[in-house]
């Protein structure tokens, strides 16, 4: 380490040093503000993306950039810019296989069993902050597949909402490029997409299960109408909310969910310090927040 640093006289040309303690402080700050945790083995991503912002604002070292995030007057705006960089390009279809597997192998079978007992054979999913629709289509395709097996004879809806009209229009179009479909398993590709030119169009059989609509999650009067959901996905959206609106939105999600319902955040997002009503539950390679049934044992902290 010392060899390298002594070679560099001009700080502006300092190499990206992944072990600079300032990165750890930036990581902790991001976690505190947004609930997104950057593991050390993915630091190169954080550093790469923060470097773009550092160039824009003219920060010469991670330490100086930390100051931009904490001490400068426009620190909130800069944090937002950084979060934008960090979450950019994160949407694609079938983004998190562990999440999909947890739904297919654990969550759906147990829901199906519980609901069958009361002869209610319908599931409702919500993709909150659906952006350009990748998550909603992924969920609908996965559920369609399940209606061949575990959910034979069942019906389901996927509700997809976003604040941004442009994103919603793109979502409704349901046309994606190579990059967006790179994780789609081949059998899904065959069944649920038609290729036109360099693009892929989602099949109507999938679309018919999804309702896209505009919704502002900070609008309490609208949020009150969302009820009876089994599973809610809200990935990398709440990170932009301040603590107060985050807490309120989470409460809405909690109310919207049926008992035994599940709330999914982004792969490295956490609700710690935001809500203790949900139970953090573990599945192989992923976590989710679970709303226990009324009267269920409620102890512990996670």
């Amino acid at each position, binding site marked *: *380490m*010392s*060899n390298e640093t002594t070679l560099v006289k001009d700080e502006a040309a300092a190499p990206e040093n992944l072990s600079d303690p300032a990165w750890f402080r930036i990581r902790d700050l991001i*976690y505190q503000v947004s609930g997104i*945790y950057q*593991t*050390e*083995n993915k630091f190169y991503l954080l550093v790469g993306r923060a470097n773009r912002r550092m160039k824009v604002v003219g920060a010469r070292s991670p330490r100086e950039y930390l100051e931009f995030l904490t001490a400068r007057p426009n620190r909130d705006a800069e944090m937002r810019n950084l979060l934008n960089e960090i979450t950019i390009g994160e949407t694609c279809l079938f983004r998190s296989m562990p999440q999909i*597997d*947890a739904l297919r*192998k*654990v*969550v759906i079978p*147990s829901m199906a069993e519980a609901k069958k007992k009361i002869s209610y054979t319908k599931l409702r999913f919500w993709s909150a902050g659906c952006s350009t629709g990748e998550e909603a289509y992924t969920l609908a395709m996965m559920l369609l597949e399940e209606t061949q097996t575990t959910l034979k004879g069942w019906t389901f809806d996927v509700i997809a909402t976003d604040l941004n009209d442009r994103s919603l229009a793109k979502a409704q179009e349901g046309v994606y490029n190579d990059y967006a479909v790179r994780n789609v398993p081949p059998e899904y590709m065959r069944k649920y997409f038609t290729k036109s030119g360099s693009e892929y169009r989602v099949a109507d059989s999938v679309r018919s299960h999804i309702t896209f609509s505009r919704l502002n999650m900070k609008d309490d009067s609208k949020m009150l109408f969302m009820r009876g959901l089994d599973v809610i996905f809200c990935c990398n959206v709440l990170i932009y909310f301040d603590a107060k609106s985050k807490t309120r939105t989470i409460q809405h999600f909690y109310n919207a969910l049926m008992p035994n319902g599940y709330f999914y955040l982004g792969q*490295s997002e*956490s*609700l*710690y*310090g935001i809500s203790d009503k949900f*139970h*953090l*539950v*573990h*599945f*192989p*390679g992923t*976590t989710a927040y*679970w709303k226990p049934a009324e009267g269920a*044992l*409620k*102890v*512990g*902290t*996670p």
Partner: protein
Amino acid sequence: MTTTAIDRLRTCIANIDAMPTIPVILRPLLHCLDQPAEEIDVDRIVELISQDKSIIAQCIRMANSALFMRSKPAETIRAAVMSLGMWRVRDLLFSNTLSKVIPHDRWVVDPEVFWRHSLAVAMVSRKFAEMIDYPDPEKAYLAGLLHDIGTVVNCMVVPDEFRAAMEKGSREHIPLDEAEQAVMGFTHCDSGRILADAWKIPADIGDALELHHRIGDPERGGTLVALVNLSDLLCRMRDLGYGYVEYRQVDFANEPGWMYLLIKYPAMAQIDLARFTFALDEYAKEVSDLVASVFSS
């Protein structure tokens, strides 16, 4: 476990002359490390390392790896030990000696996967212990490291049945102890207990070996069992398990071990389990490197 099954296990063990024996280096090492960090005798550790050429080589190689970024290469064992730090040296020593407990061709499980899991549980148990202010995190580490040592006995004593149990576990995505119970009538926890007694491993660590899957009454095993039980579960949910996926939901807040620790340790209530879980992926890399370094020699 039924009495007939345990009798059968004991008979099997009695009739076999190849019961794993405690590695020569392990007992002094256990003794040496069973005390507060500041009282550990570096010279004694260096002396122990000096007995084994492959361990010497590994320590020096690791101390000189890019990870430690020394300005001058470490040439003596002492320099390597100082550079790595006591705990990392201990990690290397344990993994190295324990990986040689049985001959390589007797393993029914992939030994690398097995040690990756053991070491990960050891590290998580220690970290967990530190977070809740348990006074002896190193003991938690040791209990974590040894918790599945019973599988080694199973490899030696009932290899075919144990292989069938592993296959059942991975085919049905169920916990290993459930598969063992179904196939063999006993589990690695039972064999672990017998080995712990044979090796005269401290009683509370022996309890962790025996009870980490059947925590039932946490009072019996106490903190150590609860720590190992939870760390084991967490590792298995984060791709640091037996090499196969267990499809199920784990609600830590309702795990008996969690509830027990929550009552006993106030710091438990402050644990950010989500963050701890994410950070586990950081250990995964370190653990894999360490295990790979043991098996590359």
